[in-house]
């Protein structure tokens, strides 16, 4: 890794951590938190739109990957939908029939794990446009 690349990486990680700390400082269910999500989302969206289409390089392992990961995502979404429709009131979280967000809310509402949640989300977005 060159010195420039190392500095770029340090700056990027610092920016991600700073954004996560600022985002996590805003309590959920408010406009500041929504704006804190919208700002990095807009940056990543612009980067995604500017990047050109790449040529496909299919292989058997990639086909298996598409199959396996699609099945797992479908299983997760199906279970989430099952929990969601079982809620007595679809507009309110239910203790008896919790969706994934209902289960994660206490963890992601405040504290260090909220910062971790922000970091994971920002890192995933960055990976979407840099892979």
């Amino acid at each position, binding site marked *: 890794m060159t010195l420039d690349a190392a500095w770029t990486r340090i700056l990027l990680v610092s920016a991600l951590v700073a954004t996560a700390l600022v985002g996590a400082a805003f309590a*959920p269910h408010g406009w500041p938190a929504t704006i804190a999500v919208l700002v990095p989302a807009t940056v*990543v969206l612009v980067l995604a739109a500017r990047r050109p289409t790449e040529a496909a390089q299919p292989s058997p392992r990639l086909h298996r990957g598409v199959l396996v990961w699609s099945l*797992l995502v479908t*299983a*997760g979404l199906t279970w989430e939908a099952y929990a969601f429709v079982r809620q007595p009131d679809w507009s309110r979280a239910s203790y008896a029939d919790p969706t994934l967000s209902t289960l994660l809310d206490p963890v992601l509402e405040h504290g260090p794990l909220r910062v971790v949640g922000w970091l994971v989300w920002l890192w*995933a977005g960055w990976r979407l446009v840099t892979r």
Partner: protein
Amino acid sequence: MTDRTIIIIGFAVVFAAVAIAVTYSLLRRDRLATIGETLAHLTRTRTARVIAVLIWAWLGWHFLAR
């Protein structure tokens, strides 16, 4: 067993399956593409990438801001 327990067990089973698939894809890269490689393959076009970013943005809003 309550409905809550059943739902939590269901999520745990899905996450366990994901953890097994992640481990397998890292140990046997010749057999199964990792989730990152698969996502990169599926989002190689601009349209697919933008859709993926919109889903990612919605997840961020849903879990962190809503």
